[in-house]
């Protein structure tokens, strides 16, 4: 058990991803990913656009066309292979999409209440609390349609409220702060903390290293591989000080994993290895 900000974190693996690989349309999207999220932990997965973070989220959630080619995902010790999205959700896994869907005519309150299962407490109260948690006045938003009439930032908040209302065991939040104005970022960060404080493990996917400050543990993802897992501050230093400039100096797009330069960079890291030190990526020549 570790302690962060006075909060005890049980060192129980809730989500264990082992040697996971995904290949789509002739490209390696995920390469031997290993990642563990402990119960009650905020685990930040940091990486540039196109590094495979969202794909990993879709694989864990069981989305269509995201069946891994190899590897294993265990949730609370149970292998998720072959389980549908619904079955995974009912085990307590959920996902807040980076680009939330638009639902013509479906009221915001109804959408948020979807994840409140019958055996849980009063749905209406839960929905109200969730809307308040993302700073959306329930009387204004509860009956509005969750469609294109909401701004991008409003839809993000609604999506996060739906996750919060569900009280999941594992909340995967894909870029939860994208589309949120600077003044409102605090609302989103408070919601993430609240999720964790109320018992949800959070896998927080982001390309913004500022969010790493919320993490109990951080992993760094690059070209479909986890390059680093460990201390959040070290992950942030590595990402901002070495990884990003290094990639930019290569002139390679993050998704261009097949290019010789990128392959060489990966080889120099020893391939997809967790717990690498920040020096594992060589400085550009």
């Amino acid at each position, binding site marked *: 058990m570790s302690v962060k900000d006075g909060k005890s974190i049980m060192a129980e693996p809730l989500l264990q991803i082992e040697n996971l690989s995904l290949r789509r349309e002739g490209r390696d999207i995920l390469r031997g990913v290993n990642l563990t999220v402990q119960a009650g932990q905020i685990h930040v997965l940091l990486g540039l656009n196109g590094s495979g973070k969202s794909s990993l989220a879709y694989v864990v959630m069981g989305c269509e066309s995201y069946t891994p080619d190899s590897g294993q995902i265990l949730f609370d010790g149970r292998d998720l292979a072959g389980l549908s999205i619904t079955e*995974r959700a009912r085990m307590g896994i959920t996902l807040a999409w980076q680009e939330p869907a638009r639902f013509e*005519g*479906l009221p915001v309150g109804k959408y948020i209440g979807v994840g409140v299962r019958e055996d849980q407490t009063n749905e209406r109260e839960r929905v109200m609390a969730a809307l308040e948690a993302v700073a959306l006045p329930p009387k204004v938003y509860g009956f509005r349609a969750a469609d294109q009439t909401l701004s991008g930032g409003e839809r993000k908040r609604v999506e996060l409220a739906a996750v919060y209302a569900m009280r999941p065991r594992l909340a995967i939040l894909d870029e939860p702060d994208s589309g949120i104005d600077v003044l409102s970022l605090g609302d989103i960060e408070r919601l993430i903390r609240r999720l964790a404080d109320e018992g949800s493990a959070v896998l927080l996917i982001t390309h913004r290293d500022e969010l790493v400050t919320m993490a109990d543990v951080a992993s760094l993802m690059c070209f479909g591989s986890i390059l680093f897992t460990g201390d959040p501050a070290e992950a942030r230093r590595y990402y901002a000080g070495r990884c990003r400039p290094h990639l930019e100096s290569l002139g390679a797009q993050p998704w261009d994993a097949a290019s010789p330069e990128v392959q060489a960079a990966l080889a120099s890291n020893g391939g997809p290895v967790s717990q690498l030190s920040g020096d594992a990526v060589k400085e550009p020549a």
Partner: protein
Amino acid sequence: MSASTVREHALGQRPGWANEMAAMLEAYREAGGNPDALQLPEVATLVVSANEILAAHEIPGVHFEAESLEHGVKANIAVEPGVKIERPVHLCFGVIPAEGLQEISAEYDIGAGAQVEFLAHCSFPNAVKVQHVMEACIRVGEGASLTYTEAHYHGPTGGVEVRPHAGVRVADGGRFITTFSLTRGRVGLMELDYVVSVGADALAELTTKVYGTGDDKITVREVVRLNGKGARGLTKTRVAVRDEAVSQVYTTAEGNAPGARGHMSCTEIVRDRAEARNTPLVIVRDDQAQVTHEAAIGTVNRKELESLLARGLDEDEAVDLIIRGMLR
């Protein structure tokens, strides 16, 4: 017909009136209406059961001329020029027995500059073999605004044939906004046919929402002619079909004048062995006009579906929720 005469008529002195009225109020409720509103003195109301006029209550600015025919009713509904009717006018049409034919011939005259909203409910709760035919002629005067919302309830058997037909003329600067919905109970056979002519700087918006199940057959034909300079038109069709239901949507928009803008939007969700067809027709006769259309026919949006599955709904629950939202 004066208001006082109508109210006496609405009280109904003939035997059996009360029972029929009670049945119609219940049917009205089943169709989604609020029966209490039909009894408010400040609300204009017309209630027709088969070919019987059970109530025709006028208010200042709204006038009904209604007469019984052998198989239905002929009605003239007029709104005086320049008036603004604060509360929606309530229309209730229905057939309570299991079998019957109801033919409604209606003329609507909305005077220049008038503003009015109609809530029409058509209910056939016990239908096993019922035909309902509506032939309407609607004139929206210059600068007038008419919002016409029509909801149907056809009961659980699918034994209804309904043919709402309307010819609409929207004068310059007028607004005609209509929503037709048949989303609860069975549809049976439905043939909706609207033709709308839109004048200069006028607006027409037609929304149709239908949910077909069993062996329901749905046909939607809508034609919007943007004849005046700066005329605007929108057709928005939302249909869901499952089981072995069949839907056919034919929408036409004509851009016939400079600055005319039209758009047709059609979404049809198909489940099981159902079938959906969509045929948009765009005609532009002026080089300053523009008409666009979009259509999505088939399964539900994958992202919407997975978003709901990720909250723990199963696929049937999620699809139903998406459809209900779309048809709301």
